[in-house]
Structure formats: structure tokens, C-alpha cells
């Protein structure tokens, strides 16, 4: 059968924040005009500024904007977009949305609606993978709402158990339950979060493995039957089941295990008729047995580390696959060079139990230098709304080996300046600096064991610097507190001068 290739004459990016910016850049590089969508809370957001056109699709709540399928389809029609890139989160794994795009003659940049509904339903995909001979975690093979069924299954497999959203991702709605007493409330809370975040309140239960490694494989599949994997990412550093640090390669894999897991990942993709970019997640136990966790049918937050070690632009490949083109390389061409680490920067206050921190970014300075990449959705002066995921940006580094990458990450985090809202940067510094992280002893209980609860520590020297800087700045009259930009010609007094003078040199 001959498959025609098609042009993407305009792409609508159905997302916000750093991932929308990432996708817009890839489209620009490919010479494809872009359309941003935004809610009323995001009218001055970075992704809106970067796209060629932008359409307001509704009020701030996600259900009325970034999850509002009718409004998004209407925006695509009005702007003449031929394709929609969903990013991650929001509608990226919503089979109903992909099906609607197909019906409307729009290209959904991702798998088909059919494949999406198969892998997107975590419970159905557990059954499919099990049939294909891929090991799965013990637990429910169908979702439910009846608390009695959850209690019975939990009793059968034994506590602790994990409640998960069937349509979920990013750890939302996921709850660990240690005893029968807590089960009902956890199931209710999980259903509430799942309903709000994904528009589907179904949850299920599986055995909770307390300290495995989280190892996932990046896959790419074109529409002509070619499937490759691009090696693994280890994402064991998690808080509340949400990844915060990822790296590749994993210290826990040797060539043999990597080959076995890679083959399982490719088999998982083939079993579900999956196309475009995706990720097959596994839990890896101490004894190197691994269990299929789920297929993430989208671009992952942590995709850049694979891009850096494999030398492949995943969003560019997504666009090519959507155009009907063949993958330009086969499995034997896939390489992994050096080591890459990503740190996710969230608008959360790590010293206050990771409370969300919204508001105005008073100042931003991005990190730089060789091997440092910053995928960023904010700018100096922007507002971080309360309605969405708290991810602000990602610091990604590449170096020749793990230790060099770790040191580069420490340096890059120290260069990252986000003022005005609380962020996880200082916490991430402590994670990367921790001797157990340096030793590669990364398991999903890492943070609970070594770093939580977290308190910020400041030595006297740092406090001196802070206080002196505040006073010097206030003393120069035109400092930040006055809201007036410095003018080097503004007068003879050193306190009122903002140019390149030195106090103490006159």
C-alpha cells in the first residue's frame, strides 16, 4: 500500500507553558506557521507571544479552556490550522479529542484515536500487555467505582496499595493506601482529582511497590510500520508520584537488560498499533525484574534528555510522522552518547510542604553555558496563574559522563534566578548534591528517605551577602525597590548612580 505524505500548512498548539513554546519552536524551524490557544488567565503568556497567531478559547478553568474541545476545534477551523499538536497533559491523551480531530479532517499529532483509547485506558492496556507476554503489576484488571471491590482486591493482594486514575498521568489522583481504614477516603479523593484533571473519574487499584526504580523507554513509530526505541530514561526521583529529576542512561541497566526492556517496549507499542512518539514505562525491582506500568501516549515532559543523548529532535520527528513520512533511521542506528539530566522547576514552596506559589515573576535569568538547555514558559514580569500545572521550566544538561552532568546541573541550577515566586530550585540543588544521588542510589522513595521534609538552610556568609545587597540596592536610590530603572547619568552621589561604578573606588 502506498502512503501519501501530506504537508502541515499550519499547526495549532493545544497547550500552554514551556511545552507550547517547545512545540512552537519546532514548527518554526520546520517553516510551519503556528496558532496558540490561551485562556483569559494567559493572555500575556509566553506561548501566546511566540505563535504567529493566538486565539482566546475561554475563561481560566481548564474545563472551559484548554480542555474545551469544541472551542479548540473552532479555533483550528477559524485559523485554517491543518493539524493540532496537543503537547503533554490536557487533551494529549484524550481519545475523544483525537477522534474529533479525525472527524473534522484535522491531523492529530499523536497516535490514532483507536490506539489512544487502548493505551490511554490504563486498565485496558494492562490486559493487552499481559496478553502480549509483558509482565504487569498485580492488581485490578478492570476499573470501578464501588468501594467494596477496591477493598476486596486490596485485601487479596495486601497493603500497601496504590489507587490510580485510569485516564491519568503525571501522578495526578494517585494515592498510596497503607490500611483498609484509609481506603475509602483515598478512592474518593482520587476520583475527585481524576474527574477534575482528566474529565474521567475512573480509578483502579494495584499493588504498591515501595522502592523500585522508574525506568521508561522512549519509542517512535511511523505510519509505515517502523518502530524504534531510543533507550531509557530513569525517573525515580519523584514526589507524590510526580517526577522531578530524570536522567539517561540509567545506572541500573546493563546492555543485556536494556536490550530486553527495549524489546518489551517495542512489543508494547506494536501490540497496541501505536504511532508517533510515546513512552513505555516500567518499574524495575532490585532483582532486575521489571513490570509494565503504562504507555504514555504523548511527548513526555522529560523528552529533552533523550534528545541530548540520542541526537534526535523528538518534536521534529513527531511532525514528520504526522506528515506520513518514514522514520529516517532504524533501531541499529540509535545511539546513546554521554549523560543527560533534567530538573523540573515548579512554582511550589519546598520549605512549606510544596504549597503552590502563584503570582508575578519579578525577575528571571536563565542558566547558560555549554551543554545547558533551559525549556522555559515564563519571562520577567509574567504572571503565573493558579489554575494550571505548576511547571515553570526545565533545566536540562548534557555532559560526557554522569558525574560531569551532575556537576554541570549543580552549576546550572546555581545560575537559575527566578524571583518573586517560590520555586523548587533550592530543593533540586539539594537533590543533585546529595551523596546518595551522586552514588546513583536513586529509587522512588529517595526523597522521603533522604530529603523530606525539607528546610532551607542559609549560612551566615550567605545571609551577610543578602543583607548587604539589600542595603546597597536600597542605598543607591534607583534600585529595584524604587521601581525606577537605573540611569548612569543621574547625579553625583554614588547612592543614586546605577551604572558601572564601584562603591569604595573614588
Amino acid at each position, binding site marked *: 500500500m502506498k502512503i501519501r505524505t501530506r504537508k502541515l500548512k499550519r499547526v495549532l498548539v493545544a497547550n500552554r507553558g514551556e511545552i507550547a513554546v517547545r512545540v512552537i519552536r519546532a514548527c518554526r524551524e520546520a517553516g510551519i506557521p503556528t496558532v496558540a490557544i490561551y485562556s483569559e488567565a494567559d493572555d500575556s503568556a509566553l506561548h501566546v507571544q511566540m505563535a504567529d497567531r493566538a486565539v482566546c478559547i475561554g475563561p481560566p478553568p481548564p474545563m472551559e479552556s484548554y480542555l474545551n474541545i469544541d472551542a479548540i476545534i473552532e479555533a483550528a477551523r477559524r485559523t485554517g490550522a491543518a493539524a493540532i499538536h496537543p503537547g503533554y497533559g490536557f487533551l494529549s491523551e484524550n481519545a475523544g479529542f483525537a477522534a474529533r480531530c479525525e472527524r473534522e479532517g484535522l491531523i492529530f499529532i499523536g497516535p490514532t484515536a483507536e490506539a489512544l483509547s487502548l493505551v490511554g485506558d490504563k486498565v485496558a492496556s494492562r490486559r493487552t500487555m499481559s496478553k502480549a507476554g509483558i509482565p504487569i503489576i498485580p492488581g485490578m484488571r478492570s476499573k470501578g467505582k464501588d468501594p467494596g471491590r477496591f477493598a476486596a482486591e486490596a485485601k487479596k493482594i495486601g497493603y500497601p496499595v496504590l489507587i490510580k486514575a485510569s485516564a491519568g498521568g503525571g501522578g495526578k489522583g494517585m494515592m498510596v493506601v497503607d490500611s483498609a481504614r484509609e481506603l475509602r477516603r483515598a478512592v474518593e479523593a482520587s476520583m475527585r482529582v481524576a474527574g477534575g484533571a482528566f474529565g474521567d473519574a475512573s480509578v483502579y487499584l494495584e499493588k504498591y511497590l515501595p522502592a523500585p526504580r522508574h525506568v521508561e523507554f522512549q519509542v517512535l513509530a511511523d505510519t509505515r510500520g517502523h518502530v524504534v526505541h531510543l533507550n531509557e530514561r530513569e525517573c525515580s526521583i519523584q514526589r507524590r508520584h510526580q517526577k522531578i529529576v530524570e536522567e539517561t542512561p540509567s545506572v541500573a541497566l546493563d546492555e543485556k537488560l536494556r536490550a530486553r526492556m527495549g524489546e518489551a517496549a517495542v512489543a508494547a507499542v506494536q501490540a497496541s498499533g501505536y504511532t508517533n512518539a510515546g513512552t513505555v514505562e516500567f518499574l524495575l525491582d532490585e532483582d532486575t525484574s521489571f513490570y509494565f506500568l503504562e504507555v504514555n501516549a504523548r511527548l513526555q515532559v522529560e523528552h529533552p534528555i533523550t534528545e541530548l543523548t540520542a541526537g534526535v529532535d523528538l518534536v521534529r520527528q513527531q511532525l514528520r510522522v504526522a506528515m506520513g513520512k518514514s522514520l529516517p533511521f532504524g533501531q541499529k542506528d540509535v545511539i546513546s552518547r554521554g549523560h543527560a539530566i533534567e530538573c523540573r522547576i515548579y512554582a511550589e514552596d519546598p520549605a512549606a510542604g510544596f504549597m503552590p506559589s502563584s503570582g508575578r515573576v519579578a525577575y528571571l535569568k536563565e542558566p547558560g553555558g555549554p551543554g545547558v538547555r533551559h525549556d522555559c514558559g515564563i519571562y520577567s514580569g509574567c504572571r503565573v496563574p493558579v489554575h494550571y500545572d505548576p511547571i515553570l521550566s526545565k533545566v536540562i544538561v548534557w555532559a560526557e559522563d554522569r558525574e560531569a552532568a551532575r556537576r554541570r546541573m549543580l552549576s546550572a541550577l546555581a545560575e537559575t534566578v527566578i524571583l518573586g515566586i517560590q520555586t523548587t530550585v533550592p530543593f533540586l540543588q539539594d537533590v543533585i548534591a546529595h551523596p546518595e544521588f551522586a552514588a546513583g542510589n536513586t529509587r522512588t522513595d529517595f526523597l522521603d528517605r533522604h530529603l523530606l521534609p525539607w528546610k532551607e538552610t542559609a549560612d551566615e556568609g550567605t545571609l*551577610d551577602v543578602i543583607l548587604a545587597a539589600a542595603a546597597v540596592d*536600597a542605598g543607591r536610590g534607583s534600585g529595584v525597590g524604587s521601581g525606577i530603572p537605573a540611569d548612569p547619568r543621574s547625579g553625583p552621589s554614588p547612592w543614586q548612580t546605577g551604572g558601572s561604578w*564601584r562603591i569604595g573606588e573614588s
Partner: protein
Amino acid sequence: MATSRKKNFHYLIDGTAHDVTLIEETGRSRVRIGERELEFRALAVSPNCLSLTLGGRTVTVYLAADEKRRYIGVSGRQFVLQETGRTSADPSSPRAQDSRADASLCSPMPGQVVKILVREGDVVDRDQTVAIVEAMKMENELRASCRARVKRISARPGGLVDAGEVIVELEAEEKGERSAGT
């Protein structure tokens, strides 16, 4: 003739008061922090950036401010400063004030009240979850800072609250710090 200019500043960081004095003499700049005096040099790189040499070490410091606070960043860490007109020894300075019987539960961030788990007249224990507020798609359990009696419920489930807005008025049954956390 040597001239000397002094300027005093009082800052609150994380609830602790600090006194800072800038001392400018011809050819020499010093800063007095508490009891210590340190010589410094400062290069204003931009309105938001100072290169500061203090005690022989040069660091790049980033600064920003809004109506209420100053934000200072160094080596990836951020410090939030509030300027106060009072010295740390002043009894009316905020730290010197003792926590009162009011232990009311305030929302630490803007969000939506998901659930209120107490009724008026209830007595709650320290660390007991009183309300759940959702923000940025995460449910945050707000706990009582001390053993307290529920005086009034000021917010409704489903309602929106601002940062600092009282959700449940609590009256302390014992002395405790006013705080909320997950």
C-alpha cells in the same frame, strides 16, 4: 577631610529581624550587620543585578521587588525581605509580638475549597486536617497549628479563596504558632 555617611535599614527575613547599616567614607565602604562590620565593593551590573565583593568573596546577586517585598537571589536561592521601620530590639516589631489565641486557618495560596472537615463548635487537635484546598491541580490538606475550637466557618466548599483568606476561624485551646502546612 574624611566624610562619613550612614544609612540604617531594617529587614525581616522569614520572621527574623535584621539591622543593617551602610557606612560610606571616602575611599571605603562598609556594612554593619548586627555586631559585625564588613568592607564591601559593589558593581551595579543592571537594575536587577549587583556584583558584590564582601569578605574577599565576589558573588553575583539578583534583586527584584514588588509593593510589599524585596526578592534577592544568590546561587539559585531566593530570600524574601520585608523592610520594617523598626529595629529588631523594638518591642513592637512583628517577631516580638507573641502569638495570640487566634489560630485561624488561612489559605496559604489562592485556590478552591474542596472540603471542610469540621463543624462550628468542634475541637480539633494539632495537625488535624481542617480543610482541603485545591490549587494547581493538587489537593492541599490544611491542618490546625494547635489544639483549637472552631469558632466560625468562613468559606464554602466549592468557593474560591485568596492567599491569606481565613477559611476556618479557630480559637487556640493552647499556645501555638500560627501556621498551616500539608
